[in-house]
């Protein structure tokens, strides 16, 4: 198989299959959660649960208070850098936007490629920092499972191979781009069955947390 053939296959059936698997998996996981529901609260409520739930979805993007921020400083800073970098790379790189456009028929303006390149490096470096903390910090090492390292690896690979292919490093471009798409396919397939699901479920979790508190009049 030549590099071009490999790339063609990955771009076609390879990524399509992975994307379908991803969508089916995510939908299944969301149904598993939402079907369980929550029983109606019979207590005399102080406030609207749904309003508070929606508010908590927004407020949890920021740390609860200054002391929480101080106590978990490296996790919070590296976490923000990684997530911002990842978001920029996925959604604001022009070739990615073109791909979304071809599938969903909606597009949006991208950032200049060198800017996205910078954010790729930010995401890669902060991910290395997060991994370093996971293995070196006593608390995080204790909490970490194989799934944490697997999730890290399948997220790191697309970033790394994307960076390498953009800079034409290590392998011929078509091979590296093919491998990049393969790594994305792997991420998509693994995604629904790991903690990566938090990208979707955190909205449900925050909503419930905020609603439970808001019904009691607890401000978050």
């Amino acid at each position: 198989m030549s590099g071009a053939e490999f790339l063609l296959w990955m771009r076609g059936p390879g990524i399509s299959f992975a994307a379908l698997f991803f969508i089916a998996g995510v939908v299944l996981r969301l149904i598993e959660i939402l079907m369980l529901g929550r029983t109606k609260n019979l207590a005399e409520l102080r406030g609207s649960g749904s309003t508070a739930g929606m508010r908590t979805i927004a407020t949890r993007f920021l740390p609860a208070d200054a002391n929480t921020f101080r106590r978990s400083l490296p996790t919070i800073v590296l976490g923000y850098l990684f997530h911002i970098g990842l978001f920029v790379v996925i959604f604001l790189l022009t070739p990615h936007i073109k791909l979304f456009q071809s599938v969903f028929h909606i597009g949006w303006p991208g950032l200049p490629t060198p800017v996205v390149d910078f954010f790729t490096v930010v995401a890669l470096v902060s991910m290395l920092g997060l991994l370093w903390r996971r293995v070196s910090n006593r608390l995080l090492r204790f909490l970490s499972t194989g799934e944490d390292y697997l999730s890290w690896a399948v997220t790191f690979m697309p970033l790394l191979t994307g960076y390498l292919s953009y800079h034409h490093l290590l392998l011929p471009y078509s091979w590296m781009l093919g491998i990049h798409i393969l790594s994305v396919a792997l991420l998509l397939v693994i995604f629904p069955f790991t903690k990566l699901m938090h990208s979707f479920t955190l909205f449900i979790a925050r909503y419930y947390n905020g609603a439970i508190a808001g019904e009691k009049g607890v401000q978050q």
Partner: protein
Amino acid sequence: MTQPSLEKGVNILREQIDGPVAAFFSSCVHCGMCAEACLFYTETGDPKYTPIHKLEPMRRLWEREFTFAGRIKKWLGLAPPISDEELEQWQPVVYDSCTLCGRCSMVCPVGNDITYMIRRMREGMAASGNAPQGLIGATTRAVKLGSPMGVKLATLEAQARHVKISTGLDVPFDEEGAEYMVVLSSMEVVNYPEYLEAITRIFHEAGKRWTISTEAFEATNSGIQIGVSDIAAELVGRIVAAAEKLQVKTVITPECGHAYTALRWEGPNLIGRPFLFKVRHILEVLDDLREQGLLQTSGMENDRITFHDPCQLVRRGGVVDPPRNLLNMVSNNFVEMEDHGTMNWCCGAGGGVSANEAADEIRLKAFKRKKAQLESLEVETLVTACANCRIQLEEGIEENEMEIPVVGITEMLAAHLVEHPSSDEGEQP
């Protein structure tokens, strides 16, 4: 309690898994931030006290039975079932080192309400026979004697006589149609009777009709702390029956954190219907009286004081402003701790920890957080609004050779109460 067994425990734990629980477990990324919010972790540095880790058996059950991948793992024999040994091993982290304070639930970046899950996990622990002895004892006494400490009506009546002697006022029992029905914690009846005297004088001045039911005067609820909803419902049911029999408008829960949660928030859900009366914490009632001009005080405390927020009132109950409004009435030197209100640090003894002898050592270790908070403020008096917090604070202060008196907010207000002599009163001492 019925005879516990592993099967029962697992069945009950399974019933506890609802949409929120599934969303929370699905979202955890093992970031460790909940540990930094938990005083049992911050004061020991031991990662086993990480809040989300306390739920590992429940998480495994959820994964095994409520997720597609988990069911495949189970089918392949890769997800072993929960064992009795596992639950037994988890007892110290689920009970001894969690006060259900809810601080972890405030900081989790993905929004997990971990405390909500620990409350539920305890249902499975208790049903499988893995609740601590101390809590089983307290719960048994609550069911059989009506009080977790074994306090009887006669003790309360004796306190009422003391109130009569020192104030000339009657503590009204079983008065139908009263506006308020007051429930008390055993701790108050035995250790802090000044509370009963304080509310007697305050309600008299406010001109409010109130009463105590001889059939249900205990406000606390061991069923919630141990995690047996049937018992919790039985204990709530006694108060509901008494309140509806006396046709009161409002039941007032005492200076106690979890009693408020038990009656105000869990109560109607436990008995499966809304109440026909309102439930208010004493601080909410006093704040209302203040607003209506029915609570008048004179004089100011000059001591530097601070307020310890009972977790179940603020973070789990939404009562944040009333104690501050009330303290500012009688103090001109009230200072806040660095973390206060909904982000306060627990005293270390809530959620059944104080009734559990196995937790004695870790409970006093956890107090070090409060100690650090107090020392940085250099206050002369510590005010709180929970008899259980108060006893822990007093013990911790004693143990650490500090010299800070702990006062209940209601009695502090009563000490400044403006009293008008009236013709129908007996002799005032």
